[in-house]
């Protein structure tokens, strides 16, 4: 192994060599720089490899042939090697990235860059306090120099502000250093660590040193100068400043916190959490991309500082957690800054330019996912461990704050992503092949790290999950034509079903059928799309992968990972819709919020166990259990869009593409239902303050069922109507589930199946109509029955089924429902459900009537039947519905038997095709028999009586009317149930919507207000700095005394 000192020597030596070159010879100078950086990276990497493979041991490097503390010594261990690799590699890539500007400014600039990287490596390596100070100053000066790379004149001011502030910092640091020396008689960090100081007057020195290093981390709110640099500096340098400098400074701070001893950790925790929350909050109101990135890096670094504060508790996990966050932040942030260099405009929506280049979009998505800690990236594992640590050590407030801040961060980033994807670009990309390559390298590094962290995790590696790999396969395959990809996707789903269905209990099996086979059927509709259809299949398959894994998840971690996966996938899917940007955002926010609730719930439940099996939920007891129940239920209810948490659904489902709506409505919602199934199955009745939580669920379900239906009846937009109806249907399912009896669960299953079938069918039908009529407003349609008979048939069957009118399968659901409520002692919630039934009838009738019946509109006289590929699955569904209605036993019987084993009872008796309960009978075949016979007879009668009826033209019925300004207001289909609205309209008041809007507005308001703090005046920033120091000082003194 070459000595790590060569990293420093190479940097310096090269810098000096540059001086020997002729002033005009930039090219060779550049090559020297690159060579030096490459050498440094190589040494660092070789150490990483060596240490990982165990070929070498961590080594202490002496200088001047004397032992520490008498001479400066360096230390090279695993963490050092890894971080130096990050630093040097970022340096190398950034050097390539900034090639043009480095050439422009000549060898001096390159020398400065080299020294910067050298100093950062030194900062990481050194074990000497004063040496630390020297390196910090080197970094400061080099930074001030490289800021000048930017063509932006404002960068000058930023650099100067930075110098001012770092002057103050270095004053504090020096005073601290010398007094530490006086106290310990040594400048060697390990020496100081050997005699940790209590938090007393003499330890002021320690305080000064620590606070100075914390200040180097740009803590909120004393960080205005840093933001200015991020905003104005050359993106290539900002990447360094954020990724490399941030990382190194963090490591230095960590070193000293370790040395200072556990008494000081709360300082790190406090500053960390404040920074994490504050920075993310303020980022909300940023419209300038690089400044936003700046805020985000500040936040992330704060997060790591928080982790440093948890060091004592995390113990062995510390490196894993902190490293996970630091490294994914470094990679992602560098990548994003590099990307920002390719985008011309500086507003967030200017990033739309990326859409010209799919690879870059993928990179962008990757980086965002890395920052928000989504699987399979390192921060995901880190977050998991961290939250569990919080829960295990009972720091619940911390846990809450952390998750909320993380949610805000996700909000910031995904808002940005949405804009970038949906808005149309004003200016095109400044395209350099080299720059793109660099960005893509960063992206690949991200995935690679994800794999590494997964491999290190004791929870199992997400990246090795077969479904996910299959889904990711679609990224490179995106160049294939859509049809081919579609076929592959369908095949994938079916195959996965075939290979994995044996080892599932009937309950999971049903969900598996819905999700995999159902998914395959829905993909039929996607054959309709010609061309490539870039960026559709990868997300879709990620979603399905998530669901596949969810069904087979046995540990909390697997469950959560799968959950996150299907959330991300569906987010990208929903985002594809035309007007879907805001809705996709609210979807991802609610989903992540729900996911965090799950995370918190699992963490509470695990209480520090490494592996927590889902079935152990049933062992939970004591005061903890009900809270776990509440959190998990919250998470799942967000997915099933229970009343109050539902506001994301209508927009998301309505705006999605024709073949996406059924996926996210018919299939995705079932994931939430499945979660609830697992939850109540494992935890059963839980009492909180004497209230049985399942009773709350019953009420919630009933409420959703009713209000959802009423709202649906008031929609003018067909897809929104269906969306609201989903809320209602899921309400039924939750209701049944929460009844906690055999029939209730059977009811839930029945609804799961039915809802999948008819909701997919209806969404496809309405989607098909939209494809042809290019509108979703029902009053603009009408009389389409003759033009689109097949769509009509499926809608007809769909609504008969859904409204529960015999003979179709919806009736079965109702029948089970009645039998279920007969055997429970809850009475009042039924009232709501009873109301929901007929109301459902209202909106369904409106749907079919105003679209297909009535007078055809002039502009729609020529429309053709919906495309074949959209009709085909509908017809399959129709067939299934009829079959299922006649022979419900073919699915239900097994489920029923299985649920019976859970409850140890068997209320339903399946004699042949007849179902008997304790209360009544359901004889589907007989019902069919009677109805068909009667129907046919009567029809025959009618035909006999008037076989020769004349088909009349539309305008045989003429009536006159003025045409007012808004014609639709006089159309019967407009506000179809006007009187109903008069009577029941009060239910329409958007309580929950206004609540959530209030929350967001409050957040944005605070952000908008408090960011005025950053006046842009360097002096004020210095004042902030001192203010911060004093505040922390007083607080910590107060805390310690």
């Amino acid at each position, binding site marked *: 192994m070459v000595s790590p000192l060569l990293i420093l020597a190479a940097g310096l030596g090269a810098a000096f060599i540059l001086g020997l070159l002729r002033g005009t010879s930039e090219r060779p100078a550049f090559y020297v720089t690159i060579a030096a950086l490459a050498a440094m990276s190589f040494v660092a990497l070789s150490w990483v490899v060596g240490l990982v493979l165990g070929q070498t041991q961590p080594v202490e490097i002496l200088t001047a042939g004397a032992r520490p503390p008498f001479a400066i010594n360096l230390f090279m261990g695993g963490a050092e090697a890894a971080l130096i690799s990050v630093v040097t590699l970022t340096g190398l890539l950034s050097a390539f990235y900034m090639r043009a500007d480095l050439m422009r400014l000549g060898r001096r600039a390159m020398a400065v860059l080299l020294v910067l990287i050298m100093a950062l490596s030194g900062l990481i390596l050194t074990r000497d306090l004063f040496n630390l100070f020297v390196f910090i100053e080197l970094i400061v000066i080099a930074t001030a120099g490289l800021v000048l790379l930017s063509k932006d004149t404002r960068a000058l001011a930023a650099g100067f502000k930075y110098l001012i502030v770092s002057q103050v910092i270095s004053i504090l640091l020096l005073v601290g250093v010398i007094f530490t020396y006086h106290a310990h008689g040594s400048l060697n960090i390990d020496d100081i660590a050997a005699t940790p100081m209590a938090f007393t007057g003499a330890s002021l020195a320690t305080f000064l040193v620590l606070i100075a290093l914390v200040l180097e981390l740009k803590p909120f709110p004393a960080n205005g100068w840093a933001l200015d640099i991020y905003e104005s500096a050359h993106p290539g340098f900002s990447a360094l400043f954020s990724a490399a400098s941030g990382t190194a400074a963090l490591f230095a701070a960590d070193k000293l916190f370790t040395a200072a001893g556990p008494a000081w950790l709360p300082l790190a925790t406090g500053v960390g959490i404040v920074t994490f929350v504050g920075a993310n909050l303020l980022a909300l109101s940023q419209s300038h991309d690089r400044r936003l990135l700046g805020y985000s890096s500040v936040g992330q670094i704060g997060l790591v500082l928080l982790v440093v504060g948890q060091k004592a508790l995390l113990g062995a996990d510390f490196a894993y957690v902190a490293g996970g966050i630091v490294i994914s932040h470094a990679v992602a942030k560098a990548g994003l800054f590099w990307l920002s260099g390719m985008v011309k405009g500086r507003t967030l929506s200017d990033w739309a330019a990326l859409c010209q280049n799919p690879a870059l979009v993928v990179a962008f998505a990757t980086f965002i996912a890395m920052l928000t800690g989504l699987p399979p990236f390192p921060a995901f594992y880190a977050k998991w461990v961290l939250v569990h640590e919080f829960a295990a050590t009972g720091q619940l407030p911390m846990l809450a704050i952390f998750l909320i801040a993380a949610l805000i961060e996700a909000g910031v980033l995904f808002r940005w992503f949405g804009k970038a994807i949906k808005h149309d670009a004003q200016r095109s990309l400044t395209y350099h092949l080299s720059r793109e390559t660099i960005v893509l390298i960063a992206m690949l590094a991200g995935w690679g790290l994800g794999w590494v962290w997964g491999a290190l995790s004791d929870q199992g590696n997400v990246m090795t999950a077969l479904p996910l790999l299959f889904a990711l396969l679609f990224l490179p395959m995106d160049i294939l034509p859509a049809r081919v990809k579609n076929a592959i996707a369908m095949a994938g789903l079916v195959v996965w079903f075939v290979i994995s269905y044996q080892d599932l209990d009937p309950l999971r099996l049903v969900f598996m059928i819905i999700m995999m086979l159902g998914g395959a059927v829905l993909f039929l509709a996607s054959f309709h799309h010609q061309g490539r259809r870039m960026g559709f299949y990868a997300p879709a398959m990620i979603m399905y992968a998530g669901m596949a894994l969810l069904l087979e998840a046995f540990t909390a971690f697997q469950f959560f990972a799968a959950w996150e996966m299907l959330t991300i996938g569906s987010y990208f899917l929903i985002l594809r819709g035309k007007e879907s940007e805001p809705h996709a955002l609210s979807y991802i926010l609610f989903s992540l919020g729900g996911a965090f609730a799950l995370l918190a719930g699992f963490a509470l439940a695990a209480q520090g166990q490494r592996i927590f099996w889902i079935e152990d939920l049933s062992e939970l007891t004591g005061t903890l259990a009900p809270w776990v129940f509440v959190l998990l239920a919250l998470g799942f209810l967000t997915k099933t869009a229970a009343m109050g948490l539902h506001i994301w659904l209508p927009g998301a489902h309505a705006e999605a593409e024709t073949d996406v709506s059924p996926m996210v409505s018919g299939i995705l919602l079932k994931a939430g239902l499945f979660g609830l199934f697992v939850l109540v199955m494992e935890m059963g009745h839980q009492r909180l303050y004497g209230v049985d939580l399942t009773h709350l669920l019953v009420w919630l379900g009933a409420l959703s069922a009713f209000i959802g239906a009423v709202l649906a009846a008031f929609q003018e937009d067909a897809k929104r109507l269906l969306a609201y109806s989903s809320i209602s249907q899921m309400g039924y399912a939750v209701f049944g589930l929460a009844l906690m009896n055999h029939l209730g669960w059977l009811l839930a299953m029945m609804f799961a199946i039915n809802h999948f079938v008819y909701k997919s069918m209806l969404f496809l039908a309405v989607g098909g109509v939209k494809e042809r009529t290019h509108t979703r407003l029902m009053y603009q349609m009408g009389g389409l029955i003759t033009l689109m008979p097949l769509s009509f048939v499926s809608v007809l069957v769909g609504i008969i089924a859904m*409204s529960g009118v015999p003979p179709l399968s919806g009736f079965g659901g109702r029948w089970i429902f009645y039998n279920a409520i007969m055997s429970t002692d809850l009475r009042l919630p039924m009232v709501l459900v009873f109301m929901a039934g007929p109301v459902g009838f209202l909106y369904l009738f409106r749907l079919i009537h105003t679209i297909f019946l009535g007078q055809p509109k002039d502009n729609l006289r020529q429309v053709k039947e919906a495309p074949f590929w959209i009709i085909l699955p509908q017809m399959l569904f129709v067939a299934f519905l009829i079959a299922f209605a006649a022979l419900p036993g073919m699915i239900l019987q097994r489920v029923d038997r299985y649920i019976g084993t859970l409850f140890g009872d068997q209320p339903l008796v399946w004699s042949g095709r007849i179902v008997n309960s304790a209360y009544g009978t359901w004889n589907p075949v007989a019902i069919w028999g009677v109805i068909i016979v009667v129907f046919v007879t009567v029809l025959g009668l009618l035909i006999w009586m008037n076989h020769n009826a004349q088909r009349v033209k539309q305008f045989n019925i003429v009536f006159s009317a003025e045409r007012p300004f808004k014609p639709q207001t006089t159309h*019967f289909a407009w506000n179809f149930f006007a009187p109903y609205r008069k009577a029941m309209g009060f239910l329409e008041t958007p309580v929950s919507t206004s609540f959530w809007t209030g929350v967001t507005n409050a957040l944005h308001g605070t952000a908008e207000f408090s960011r005025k703090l950053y006046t842009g005046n360097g002096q004020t920033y210095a004042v902030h700095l001192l203010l911060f120091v004093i505040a922390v000082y007083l607080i910590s003194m107060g805390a310690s005394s």
Partner: protein
Amino acid sequence: MTAFPNFEWVQIAYALLTLFIVINYGMVMTAVVRKIGARVGGRYGIPVWQNYVDLLKNIALRSKISHGVMYYLGPVFRLTGGVGLLMFVPTIYGSEWHQNFSYAGDLILALYFVFFGTLGMALGAGESGHPHSAIGVSRGLAQVTMAELPLALGVFALSLQYQTLDITEIVAAQQGSIFNWTVFTNPLATVAAMVAFVGTMMRSPFDVAMAPQEIPIGPPTEYHSSYLALMQTNRVLFPVAKTVIYMNLFFGGATSWAEFAIKVFCLYMISVVIGVVHPRFRVEQSIRFFLKWGLPIGVLSILVV
């Protein structure tokens, strides 16, 4: 054929017989009722055989127009709904002949099958393309959703009381003395259900859906000739079939055709009497009415049982 236990072909004959009796009974009764209504209004009124005349006339009519498939099927749905409803409930308690096909399902089947005809009718009227029929439909639906609520609650209370959903068993439970009738054993449920009954008989004050005055060409008259014939048949059949359910649930059912005739007539008269003395509600008014009266009583009934 396992789906049809103790099925013999003769049952079809029995069923047809029931159907025949009920239709004729309905013909006469509705005529009588109209006559009474006329007399209350100081008019002479129609002869009791008027319905037969109308029916024959409509069948005989030669003008035949169709607006399309759904329009054509509308009346079929309608009548199927009526007949089916009758077929799914036992008409005469204890008589082997008139159990119809009640083994196909229970109370729930009956309750939900009520919507079958309504739906078909509404769709048919819808395709007729006439906005007024659409308006009529929307009013009707809006109203029926609330009107059905008290019934649902009442029935729930009742089935809790008897711990069964099987109509025959419910009737059986009411045999013996008149005081075993649900109306006495569970008055609240009965009242709630009767509110719904009155509300869904398509008579004033709840007949805004038909609205003969405001909507001169509403659903019924958009249909003509043989369509109207079917619908008329249904209009005499359906109320009776529905009344039969109420009779079975709350008034001890009927053990003989005579009892049947009397009970159905009395029940039917309730809505008539209320109808002739009350002006019509607007839809939102009737909805509020059901919310104000029907709902609380219903809730009370399921709470006390």
